[in-house]
């Protein structure tokens, strides 16, 4: 399930040093729970994103372990401290081994 997966991130382009900013992330993904059955009654195998991490210049902001109970198109909102100019790195890890990444630069000003 690596088709049509598109990460979307909302982050400020600028912040004052030491500011706390709110980050919102959404990634399009079916998050097949492994509980559903197809029309022949066979279980559809689980296929979810099992981990999401966000870091700033390599320093961790949040590391989330996802289970099957997270909704389709996983959405997260959290806060980060921005100590200096740099890059926010967002990474999603799929059950099938795919890794999806996004990056946002934050300037100080």
């Amino acid at each position: 399930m690596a088709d049509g997966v598109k990460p979307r991130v909302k982050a400020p382009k600028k912040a004052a040093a030491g500011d706390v900013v709110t980050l919102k992330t959404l990634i399009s993904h079916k998050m097949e729970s492994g509980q559903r059955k197809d029309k022949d009654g066979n279980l559809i195998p689980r296929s979810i994103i099992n981990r999401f991490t966000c870091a700033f210049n390599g320093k961790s902001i949040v590391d989330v372990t996802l289970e099957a109970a997270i909704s389709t198109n996983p959405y997260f909102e959290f806060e980060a401290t921005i100590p200096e100019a740099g890059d926010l790195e967002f990474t999603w890890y799929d059950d099938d081994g795919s890794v999806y990444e996004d990056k946002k630069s934050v300037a100080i000003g």
Partner: protein
Amino acid sequence: MEFSRRDTLALGAGAVALAVLPFQVNAAADEAIAAFTGGADVAEGGVTLTAPEIAENGNTVPVSVDAAGATSILLLAAGNPTPGVATFNFGELAGSQSASTRIRLAGTQDVVAIAKMADGSFARAASTVKVTIGGCGG
């Protein structure tokens, strides 16, 4: 309608099974909590869990957790086929120990948040969500 001895026994066995089933569901959640806390005591309060009182659609229920001073927060749905929902581990640049997401709930149940504090203690909050349409696609 008259009950034969066989009917009565069958009814009794059914009633016992019904009484035991919800207990097993909770046991799975208790196990997940024990695995997270390592059997340590869990205090009430210190965590804020925001969830709707009534969710029309169990497929996307918005929840948010907030626990100042926590290093990680475990989110559980006690009534789901698998109780685990998510674990948030906060890093050094976390602006606050809070997060929001959207979760699936199979039916009306308690959503539980357990926070592991920086000093190694644990805190807990729970909220009952009424679900009109379940979100596990049975």
